[in-house]
C-alpha cells in the first residue's frame, strides 16, 4: 500500500489539496506517478496547499510534494526518512502545482530501501511534463565509494550545537565545517519565490469554473472576492497576499527579481568539489532552491549534487 497526499490526482477521485476552495472537484485524469504504481494506494490529507503542516501524522510510504518544508521537518523529528529526488526527475503530470520551480514529488518512508524502491518505480521521463531531465529510468543504486561529508551551519547558528551533536551520534567522522555567505538569505529567498509562485498557482481557484463558489454575489468582483475569502484558509490567504506583494510593480525588482538572482548565487556556491554530501539544518531550503536531491533523517538534512541519490543512499548506510 502506498499513500498519496491529496495533491496527487487520481481520476474520478476528489482532490482537495487540503483546501475548502477545491470544493467537490474530482480529478479528470490520473497522475503519471500513480499510473506507474503497481500496488494499491490511498489518498491522505495535507495542510492547505502544503503551506501548513499535515493535519495528522502521515502514514508511510507517502508520496508528497514538500515545497514549504513541513514534511521534511517532520521526518527529521519523528523518526521517518524523507527523500526528495533531483528536480525534474519525477513527472509532475497530475500534481497540483504549488510553486513550479520547486514542485517535486518525494517520498516519506521508514527507511531508504523502502523509499528508493518506490521512487525507482515512479521516476523517469514523461513527455506530458515538458520540464524533465532526459533520463528514462532511475535505479538509485548505492554507490561504492567513501563518502566525504561536510556541514554548513550558516544561517542556522542557533541549531549549531544540536546539529554537531547529531552528527557525532550518527558516527560521522571527518565532517568538514564550512561557511556559506548566501545561506543566511535562503529563508527569505525561498519565501519570496515560493509565495510569489504559489500566489499565481492558486489564482485559478476563483469560484467560476469548479470548486467552491460563494452562495450570494451581486457582480463579478463579489463572486471572486467572496468565493476566495470564504474558500481559502489562512495559509492560502497569506500566500496570495505575500505573493502579490513581492510581484507588484515597484516591488518586483526589489524582492522577486533579487530573490531569483540570489537563488542562482546559492546554487552556484554549492560546488560539491571537496565534499560529496552536505549536511544542513532540516529547516534549510537550499535543496529546494537549487533542485538538489536531499534526504532528511534523524534531525539532519543530507544534500548531494543533482542525480547523486546513490551517494545519499550510501551516506545514510554509513550512519549508526
Amino acid at each position, binding site marked *: 500500500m502506498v499513500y498519496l497526499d491529496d495533491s496527487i490526482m487520481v481520476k474520478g477521485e476528489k482532490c482537495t489539496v487540503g483546501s475548502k476552495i477545491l470544493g467537490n472537484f474530482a480529478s479528470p*485524469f490520473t497522475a503519471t506517478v500513480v499510473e506507474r504504481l503497481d500496488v494499491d494506494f490511498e489518498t491522505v490529507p495535507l495542510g492547505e496547499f502544503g503551506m501548513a503542516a499535515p493535519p495528522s501524522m502521515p502514514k508511510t510510504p507517502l508520496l508528497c510534494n514538500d515545497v514549504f518544508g513541513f514534511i521534511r521537518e517532520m521526518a527529521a523529528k519523528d523518526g521517518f526518512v524523507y527523500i526528495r529526488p533531483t528536480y525534474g526527475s519525477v513527472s*509532475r503530470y497530475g500534481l497540483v502545482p504549488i510553486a513550479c520551480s520547486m514542485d517535486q514529488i518525494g517520498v516519506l518512508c521508514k527507511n531508504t530501501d523502502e523509499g528508493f524502491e518506490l521512487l525507482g518505480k515512479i521516476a523517469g521521463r514523461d513527455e506530458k511534463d*515538458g520540464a524533465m531531465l532526459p533520463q528514462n529510468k532511475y535505479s538509485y543504486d548505492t554507490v561504492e565509494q567513501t563518502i566525504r561529508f561536510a556541514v554548513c551551519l550558516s544561517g542556522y547558528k542557533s541549531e549549531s550545537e544540536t546539529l554537531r551533536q547529531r552528527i557525532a551520534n550518527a558516527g560521522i567522522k571527518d565532517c568538514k565545517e564550512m561557511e556559506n555567505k548566501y545561506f543566511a538569505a535562503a529563508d527569505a529567498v525561498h519565501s519570496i519565490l515560493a509565495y510569489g509562485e504559489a500566489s499565481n*498557482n492558486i489564482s485559478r481557484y*476563483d469560484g467560476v469554473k469548479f470548486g467552491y463558489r460563494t452562495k450570494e454575489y451581486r457582480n463579478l468582483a463579489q463572486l471572486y472576492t467572496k468565493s476566495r475569502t470564504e474558500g481559502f484558509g489562512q495559509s492560502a490567504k497569506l500566500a496570495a497576499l505575500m505573493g502579490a506583494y513581492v*510581484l507588484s510593480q515597484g516591488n518586483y525588482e526589489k524582492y*522577486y527579481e533579487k530573490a531569483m538572482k540570489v537563488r542562482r548565487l546559492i546554487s552556484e556556491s554549492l560546488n560539491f568539489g571537496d565534499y560529496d554530501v552536505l549536511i544542513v539544518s532540516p529547516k534549510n531550503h537550499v535543496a529546494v532552491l537549487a533542485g538538489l536531491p536531499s534526504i532528511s533523517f534523524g534531525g539532519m538534512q543530507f544534500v548531494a549534487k543533482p542525480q547523486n541519490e546513490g551517494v545519499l543512499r550510501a551516506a545514510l548506510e554509513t550512519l549508526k
Partner: protein
Amino acid sequence: MKNYEVVMGLEVHVELSTQSKLFCSCSAKFGAGANQNVCPACCGMPGMPAVTNKHAVELGIMAALLTNSEITPVMTFDKKNYFYPDLPTGYQITQWFAPICKNGWVEIETSSGKRKITLKQIHIEEDAGKLVHDTRTGTSLVDFNRTSIPLNEIVSNPDFRTAEEVVAYLEKLRSLLSFAGVSDCKMQEGSMRCDVNISVREMGSNVLGTRTEIKNMNSLKAIAAAIEYESQRHIDALETGCETLVQETRRWDDAKGVTFAMRDKEDATDYRYFPNPELVPIAITNEWMAEVKAKLPEAADVKFVRLTGDLKLPEYDAGIICSSKNLADIFDGTMKYFDNAREVSNWMLTELLSVSQGENKGYDDIVVDCEKFAKLIRLAYEKTINRGTAKKLLTKVLEEDIDPEKYVEENNLGMVSDTSLIETAVNEVLAQNEKTVAEYKAGSEKVFGFLVGQTMKKLAGKADPQMVNTVLKERLK
C-alpha cells in the same frame, strides 16, 4: 485653424495556423461547438503542465523573418496576472522580458508612395476564451475553445499618420503572413485583430499628445471609420476644449459610428509579470532559423514579379492570383500539370471564379483538384473537347471530383470536327428552319446564333463551334 498631425501605433494579434493549441494538445481548428476543443489545462484545472507547441514557435520565427526583425537568441515565456472569467488560470502566458523578436519593419505602399513602418516587437502569447452574454437569463457563459490558441502580437512603433497607411499595413501583413502559412489573417473570423493607439498633436511638434486606444473594429472599413472619428474627436477637443482628453481605452461602435469609453479601467491594472518556470527557455539557433527560412514559401510580391515577368501574365490577372494564398496555390498547383500560364490564368479568372461566385464562395474558399483542373484545361486547349463541354465538365470536377479524361472517354464527349458530320447537321437544320433562314437572308443577323445553337444541339453540343460557324456561313451565302 492650427494644423494637426495624427500619430498612431498598432497592436495586431494574429492567430497562428497550428493544428493544436499553444500549451496543450487540444485542436486549434475554428468553428467547433462551444467547449468542444478543451482539456483540463485550457480550462484552468490544475495538474497538467504547459508544454510548448514547437510549430507555433516556428511560425513565430517565420513572422520574425518576414518582418526583418532581430530574433532573440534565447526566448522565454512569462506570466501576466489578472482576473477575468475568459482567463481560466487567472494568468496569461505571454512574453514580457524576452519576446521572440524586435525592431523589424514592413514596407507599405499608399497613394503617397512607399514607406517603411517600423515594429517595436513581436511576441508569442496565448489567447483567452470567449464570453457570451445570455440576456434572457442575465447570465454570462464562457467558451474555452479559444483559450490558449497561439497568437503573435505584432506591435508597431507610432509611425502611422493616416488611415490609408493603417489599411495598407494590415493588407500587407495579411499578404505576408497568409502566404507564408503563418496565419490566415481573416478579420471576419477573428484570426486577425487590430487595436489602434491614437493621439493628435500640432504639426511640427515632437511631443506626443494624449493617447487613446480603440478596440473592437472588425473590418478594414471599420478601422478606417474609427480612425477618422477618433482623430476628429481629439482635434475637436484640442481646438474647442469641448471635452478633456484622457488616456483610456475606447470601444468602437460600428452601428453608431462612434467610440465610447469602456467602464473598466484596464490601464490601471498591475499585471505582476514574472518568468514562467514551467516552460524551459528556448534557444533559437542560427541552424533553426536557416531551416525555417528554407521552408518559407514564395511571398506574394515576389510571385507577382514572376507571374508578370517570366510568365508574362497581365498585371491585373497576376494581381488577383497574388491577392489570395488559396488562388496562388491553385495556380501553382495547376501549372505543375499544365504549364501554360495564360491558359491556366484565364480558366481561373473567368470560369473558376464565376462558378465559385455563383455559390457565394470567396477566393479563400475555392477547393479544386489541381491535377484534374489541369487535365480539363489541356483537353480544351488541345481541342479534344469544345469550350462549352469544358465549362460543363468544370462544374462536374468541382462537385463530383470526376477525372475529366476518363469522363470524356466514357461519355463520348470528344469534339466533333468531322466536316462531313457537321455539313450533314447544318443541312438538316437549314431544311428544318426555312422561315429562320429566310429571316437571315432578309438581313436579320441575330438569328444566326439560333441556327448555330440548333446545329450544336443536333451534334449533342460536341461540335467545334468555329467549324459550325464557317460551314453555316458558307451554306447561307
